[in-house]
């Protein structure tokens, strides 16, 4: 039980302290109100207890000042709670720049994690302390939910779509990972551990397990295996877009709209190639890879495209300013991951 209480207060991520603070403040406020109401109820029940069988109470019906008071005061307090809750929400869900980007593919009933360096883990996740880690997540079957109580954060993992979660663990340790969204028979078995390590130990762990090369290099393998390279072969003959310098850049579509070439866009191209055709390209050219490429392979391909970097002759790498899209905060993070992965590619 004492261990529980310790865990209770453990602020294991950068946002956990704020959640605890909110909880404590709310707890104090609500306890005061609840105790107040309860005492008043008990006081009235005793003080005004019926003495004679034919007794009547006072016949007061309204007291407008009192009623106004207990309408306005709660409302003002509620607005305060809303504002604090909303502020905390953006602290929790908006990732900082410069995150380590990993991919999570959930399926009944396991968590599969892919590190950019190529490590794969199942129901375990090793991360360095003090660094912000961003997970791009999807599911192969039903809805799951990535929940780390010690980090005070959670995000549903949906099939057919990417959602993201981020956290910066504060101190080394071992923390529970739960699936919080009911996902079928072994829902309660879809649990794992997050291992937060010292940065140095983490580096050691990374080098120990780096057997099959980076995620981007795996992606390159698939890029050839699935025949992507036959068309997207960088010669830019006009049939297929050049994928260099694509990631996190705005793409103009045939419809005239502009979309950001983020993870979701690239994933969508494999699933429904003709949905958002870039300007100047024809539809019905690219085959549909639904059912052919798995979610795991898609994230590898995305990492490869991310690592492809700028086109020859383009001096500047993808910079945050170049992407005025809704995910304005991401490119820097993406670029960091990309350069890291790219350097690994080049060393091969």
């Amino acid at each position, binding site marked *: 039980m004492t261990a529980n209480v310790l865990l209770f207060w453990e602020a294991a991520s950068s946002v956990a302290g704020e959640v605890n603070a909110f909880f404590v403040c709310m707890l104090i406020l609500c306890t005061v109100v609840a105790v107040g109401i309860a005492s008043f109820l008990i006081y009235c029940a005793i003080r005004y207890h019926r003495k004679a069988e034919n007794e009547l109470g006072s016949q007061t019906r309204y007291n407008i000042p009192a009623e106004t008071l207990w309408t306005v005061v709660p409302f003002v307090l509620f607005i305060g709670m809303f504002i604090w809750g909303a502020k905390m929400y953006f602290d929790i869900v*908006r990732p900082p720049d410069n995150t380590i980007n990993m991919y999570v593919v959930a399926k009944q009933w396991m968590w599969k994690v892919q590190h950019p360096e190529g490590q794969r883990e199942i129901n375990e996740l090793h991360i360095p302390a003090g660094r912000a880690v961003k997970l791009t997540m999807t599911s192969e079957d039903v809805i799951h939910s990535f929940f780390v109580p010690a980090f005070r954060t959670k995000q549903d993992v949906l099939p057919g779509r990417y959602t993201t979660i981020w956290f910066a663990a504060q101190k080394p340790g071992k923390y529970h990972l739960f699936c919080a969204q009911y996902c079928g028979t072994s829902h309660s078995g879809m649990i794992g551990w997050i291992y937060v390590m010292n940065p140095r130990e983490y580096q050691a762990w990374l080098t120990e397990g780096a057997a099959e090369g980076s995620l981007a290099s795996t992606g390159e393998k698939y890029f050839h295996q699935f025949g992507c390279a036959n068309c997207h072969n960088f010669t830019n003959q006009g049939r297929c877009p050049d994928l260099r310098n694509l990631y996190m850049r705005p793409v103009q579509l045939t419809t005239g709209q502009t979309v950001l070439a983020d993870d979701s866009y690239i994933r969508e191209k494999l699933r429904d190639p003709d949905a958002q055709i870039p300007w100047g390209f024809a539809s019905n050219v690219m085959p549909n890879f639904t059912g052919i490429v798995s979610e795991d392979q898609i994230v590898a391909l995305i990492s490869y495209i991310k690592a492809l970097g700028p086109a020859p002759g383009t001096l500047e790498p993808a910079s945050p300013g170049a992407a005025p899209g809704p995910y304005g905060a991401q490119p820097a993070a993406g670029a960091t991951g990309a350069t890291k992965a790219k350097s690994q590619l080049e060393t091969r």
Partner: protein
Amino acid sequence: MIEPLSRKSYTFAWLGLLGLVLLNTLIAFLNLGPWNMIIAVGIATVMASIVAGFLMHALYDSKVVRIVLAGGVIWFLIFVSLTLTDYMTRGWLGVPGK
């Protein structure tokens, strides 16, 4: 008691409705981009109001009836607008995936 409308006014309402079906169909042949859907549903709403107002006598019935009808329509609008708010505002606030 609802006073009956004359057969003549029913016939006029019917002719108006047929005219609006024709109008709606003809407009649909023009490519107006997103306006196509807005106009189609708009004309349909006008037609529905004619049916409700005259053929269903909502205009002549008691106030409660009009409140109930308005309630149904307003609740549907609440449903559709708050649901679409989610879909149309994805990505507005710079939170990835939201």
